[in-house]
């Protein structure tokens, strides 16, 4: 019994050691996308009502993300997208998970898609452009990254372009 316990404990330790996710607040996606977008957008909130099924899946995805299991988070978000393929919030969430997975091309694609069909204003808009900026920076496109930075600032202004 003791042996088994010790064995179980050692497995736990090993599994902890093998994937210790970075503290959530230190991750790039938190520091450079979510936190600043939240700070910028106080007062300018566009939050559509969400399907409870989608909320369940995105909550699970968020938990997986916190635990550092980005593959699992992506699987769950893909399930959410099957239910609501045109939900800018899920698309942006997926973009951020792709950022954490260091798949910058896909982070860029999902963020653009979210912006295209999203409100193009407020917090989600800021997250869209900040994600685009970070992704472009990693993809060696400093000019694009600067432009995106600028666009994220405009998310809180007046009417967005295209309306």
């Amino acid at each position, binding site marked *: 019994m003791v042996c088994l316990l010790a064995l179980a404990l050692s497995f736990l330790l090993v599994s902890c050691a093998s994937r210790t996710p970075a503290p959530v607040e230190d991750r790039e996606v938190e520091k450079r996308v979510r936190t600043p977008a939240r700070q910028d957008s106080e007062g300018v909130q566009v939050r559509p009502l969400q399907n409870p*099924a989608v909320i369940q899946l995105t909550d699970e995805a968020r938990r997986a993300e916190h635990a550092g299991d980005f593959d699992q988070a992506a699987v769950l978000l893909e399930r959410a997208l099957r239910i609501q393929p045109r939900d800018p919030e899920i698309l942006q969430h997926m973009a951020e998970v792709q950022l954490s997975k260091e798949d910058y091309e896909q982070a860029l694609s999902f963020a653009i898609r979210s912006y295209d069909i999203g409100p193009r204003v407020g917090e989600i808009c800021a997250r869209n452009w900040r994600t685009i900026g970070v992704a472009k920076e990693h993809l060696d496109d400093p000019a694009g990254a600067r432009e995106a930075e600028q666009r994220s600032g405009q998310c809180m202004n007046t009417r967005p372009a295209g309306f």
Partner: protein
Amino acid sequence: MSTKKKKRTSRRRASSGTRKHKPFKTRLWRAFLLLLGFGLGLLAPWIAWLDHVVTSEFEGRKWDLPSRVYARPLSLYPGLELSAEALEAELEAAAYRRQASVSTPGSWTVSGSTYTLFRRSFEFEDGSQPALRVSVDMADGEVRGVRGPSGKLDLVRLDPAEIASIFPLHDEDRSLVSVESAPPLLITGLQAVEDRHFKNHPGVHWRGLLRAVAVNLKAGKTVQGGSTLTQQLVKNYYLSDERTLIRKLNEAFMALLLELHYDKAEILEAYLNEIYLGQQGRHGIHGFARASEFYFGQPLEALSEDRLALLVGMVRGASLYNPRRSPQRALERRNLVLDIFGSTGLLSAQQVSVAKARPLGVTARPTTGRSRYPAFIDLVRRQLRRDYREQDLRNEGLRIFTTLAPSDQKAAEAAVIEGMSALQSRGLPASLQSAVVLADVASGEVRALVGDRSPARAGFNRALDARRQVGSVIKPLVYLLALEHEQDYNLLTTVLDEPISLRQADGSTWSPDNYDDRSLGPIALIDALVQSRNQATVRVGMNIGVQSLISRLQQLGVEAPLPAVPSTLLGAVELTPLEVTQLYQSIAAGGYAVRLRAVTSVMHPDGDTLNRYPLRLVPEHRREAVALLNYALTQVVERGTARELPALLGSVKTIAGKTGTTNERRDSWFVGYTRDRVAVTWVGNDDNSPAGVTGGNAAMRLWAGLFRRLRLKSVDLDMPEGAYWTWVEMERNALSDPDCDGAVQMPFIDGTEPQQPSPCLQRLDRGNQRSIWRKWFD
């Protein structure tokens, strides 16, 4: 040999006990020891050999564990658009049984508009799900609520339908069952009838065996088998049916050895899948899962008690109790087995009498055992072949998760069967063939695939392999390229629908006609597409350049050779229905291309994910132009070559589509999409002979037949950044106002909208200015 010697030895030893002569006894003793040593010397290699035979046989069969292929799991949640019919189709495909009371996993019932079902436990990529009893309220083609034992549920995912088992080694489909997924009554019933001590004996049940020998000796022939399940399994590994003592002993030894190496569950599983239950031509029917399909045309999980009893009864003699050849004998055997089920407490007396009252229920003709979805499984194999070496696929028991939606597949098959017979009754030739591809717009997941007018027929898969000219289906790509040159083209740009002659490489001239042999002269670009004008399209295309069309097609995934000649602009290129679907997926998704997928992930049986095929978006650069094209294609349905579609569908939803017809009416194409589904239908003759079909008279009708069975959602026409809607007067190519007669809303790329105000708008503006002045003065 050695066993015989040993027998003789022991007999001598037995007889020696009665003699008193010492020298003789000593001699005998010596002889015994000699023979024993000799016997043991042979016995050890003999047993080692038996051990080798039985384990390699067993391992060899285990190696053959097939890859299991699953449909996409159905997720139920409030707000899901799903008809009751579609829900029942999904349950049927997943082998759920309709029962009066829902007490075991895999059963369902309906009362009013509330479905109650018992979900089975299942191991998914993102975790395992326990079995769960849920109620689903349905109304107006929608799930209204889902409840579990502890109240309201936001989301319930059912276990997916198993749609095929792939034996990569033999390239054949075969059905197998695991101990976990086998019906519990099969497991317990089999033991009750064949081997009650299975759980405890070491492979051979000596007392049972001795009793059988005694009974047989008394009767003078073989009456009782006395073999354990393990012995029967061992016996089943050999084809001959000789009944010699040596054979019996070998079997007994091998059974003991098998039990030493493997646990009861492994042995039982091998038994369930190996036991001989019938014959189809040269092929034996092995295993209960295969037998279930062979005799009842149903998956094992769906069998009722009486049918399980028949199969259990047939273990004793598959040809003796063959229900097709000797139905009366089979019925008596089945009822005897049901009595045993009753006397051992596996079934209640009432269940037994209900089951005994049922007919045998065997299908008149055996089913082939191939997948119910041959065309789709073909696509699955091809996608896997891209990533797996044959060697890897031979791995034991991969679990392959696919995108097939069984209810959509059923709709597609029904649409083809019904649609093709309707075309025949309208005078079109009976030789016509057809193909359908249905995919999810945003994810590119293939939901249904039909490759033959008889969808269950395996063989030539037209959805993937019929390479045919596409005709006008290509035109939207020409106009997309034009709209990307926004300085030259918008939807109202005047283009010429007039005869045009082009010199070809071989020196001849090519002068395309319109389908109505008329030329409309100067028309708006959108009308040239909406009315599918050949001459106008060639003029626009020549301005863009054939090469840029070819590059775009290649970029969108077309791998076939594309001739750089003007006739390519009118679709003189050969594509498959799947390739056409790929082209339109990106248009339907507003310029976000994804590769069409049939497989989402592949798991190892131990739970590891071997491969994922995640959603990967490739945004096109000019998504504004795609958005404009989307609108234009809705106009094809509203007022163009597909204007009969809304009536065929009986719907007022906004749908986008394009017809295609080729020279001499050889091919009929229709490509259409809603907000969430894109589908391509094709009709034509396999030998490419004139078929009398046009896009509108054949393929579009099939398409309508499919979408009549699906939930329709209007195409999304929101503009991306860089494009917007404005009011225009088409005839004058001028800006207008909703208050003006003949004003329509149309999308434009920023800065490309008409500059001139229409006379009506000018009048309104003057009026407005006056009123402003008046306000000043009032």
